[in-house]
């Protein structure tokens, strides 16, 4: 069935890289997806770092606000959040620009996608990193504090290196979620891989071939990332005692 649509003719040549084929369109879409995933993942880790330290060491009001943030984001579907943030962010930026006397702008799809998915990723990253910080033996942090280490130096030298090993599996999962969540941006019409695929499939009517091809691309992305993250985890666990080996 693969490669043959209703007409019976092979549709595989449609995947060729140069123009009669749509390969270039798909790869451009993949590149957009990877860009957004990397950006959103990075933004998510930044928000998550702030959130995790805030949840553990912040004041009571900050803790409550962060609890509301993580609860709401994890309870509302990403698709709804994407629409709300997409409209709200575009509106807010334009209101701001208009009030300063500039004209309206169209926010780039990549920037909007990164911002929206980053806020979503941040909520999950907060929980992952909070758990990882808690896995650092309290004595280590207390010892550093008693040596008079300032908080930032303590975070850089003690907490962050020690929490890495515990954080990597959770972050790897989040990265996979990020790559898959970029597909949701197709719904707001952004030209990432899934949207590019739908465009190509809609034009050529070779739905099956194109969706299978996109699936293979996503699968390869996830397999490669799994490999890389297992390397990173082994590196983060270096120097840890292993059982029996």
């Amino acid at each position, binding site marked *: *069935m693969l490669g043959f*649509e*209703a007409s019976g003719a092979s549709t595989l040549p449609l995947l060729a890289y140069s123009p009669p084929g749509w390969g270039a369109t798909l790869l451009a879409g993949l590149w957009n997806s990877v860009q957004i995933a990397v950006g959103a993942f990075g933004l998510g880790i930044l928000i998550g770092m702030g959130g995790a330290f805030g949840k553990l060491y912040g004041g*009571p*009001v900050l803790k*409550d606000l962060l609890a509301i943030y993580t609860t*709401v984001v*994890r*309870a*509302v*579907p*990403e*698709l*709804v959040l994407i*629409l*709300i943030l997409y*409209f*709200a962010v575009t509106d807010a930026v334009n209101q701001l620009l208009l009030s300063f006397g500039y004209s309206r702008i169209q926010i780039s799809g990549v920037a909007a996608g990164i911002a929206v998915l980053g806020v979503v990723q941040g909520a999950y990253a907060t929980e992952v990193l909070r758990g990882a910080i808690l896995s650092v033996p309290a004595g280590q942090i207390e010892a550093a504090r008693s040596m008079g280490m300032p908080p930032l130096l303590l975070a850089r030298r003690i907490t962050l290196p020690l929490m890495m090993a515990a954080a990597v599996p959770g972050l790897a999962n989040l990265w*996979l979620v990020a790559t*898959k*969540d*970029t*597909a*949701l941006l*197709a*719904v707001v019409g952004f030209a990432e891989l*899934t949207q590019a*695929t*739908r465009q190509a*499939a809609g034009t050529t*009517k070779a*739905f*099956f071939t194109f*969706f*299978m091809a*996109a*699936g293979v691309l*996503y*699968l390869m992305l*996830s*397999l490669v990332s799994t490999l890389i993250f297992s390397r990173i985890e082994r590196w983060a666990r270096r120097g840890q005692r292993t059982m029996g080996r």
Partner: protein
Amino acid sequence: MLKELMIPRRLVMIALVLALAVWSAYALRWDWLGNPKYQALIWTGIWNTFWILIVTMVIGMALAIPLGLAQAVGPWYLAAPARIFCSIIRGTPLLLQLWLLYYGIGTFFPSIPWIRESDLWPILRQAWPYAVVALSLSVAGYEGEVMRGAFKGVPHGQLEAARAMGMPRFTLFRRIWLPQALHRVLPTLGGETVLQLKATPLVATITVIDIYAVAGRVRQDTFIVYEPLLLLAVVYMSITGLIVLLFRWFESRFPSRVA
């Protein structure tokens, strides 16, 4: 619970939230809620979201049990396909799987005469079967992996004891192995159900009318942007709260030993 809320700073927060709710009730446009057409649509949408969630969770779990079993103890010719299936489902976006089924296979069916003439055709022509299949397979893929761990986690002594008592294999599975494995996944099942709820709005992209699709319809008809989306967020948060409470009650009915 109530005592935790009666702290001054939380009282201030609650007051702020209430003020925000009152402000949005007066300052934003909610007149479309009075329209009987939209009211009917909203109830249909909520109902569709609910049944798709429940049906796909049940079918998905039913598929996840053999998938987990095959991966945990099955021979290689069962374990390998199960593992590949789970990797594919977990490695590609659900939206893509859904569109592959609906646009890919869905447009393939009309070209096969015997399918078009069969009694199933009126059903296959609609969108919801594809939504149910895609979402169920997604649950099966993710939960199959979870069930694999759960089956492996049941203490060996339990199974050996049952075998030593001469229990037939199927009875052992039904009475000892499956209940203990399910007991192990129960704490994560609530979270997985919430994730599944968050996946349901994707069906709106293949023309199934769930609550998300209703909000989109209102936006298109009336050009009101934020109000339907706010309603959506509130609806989903309420359903999430319901799921969490339900599973908390469910878990409390199964005693577990806490060391």
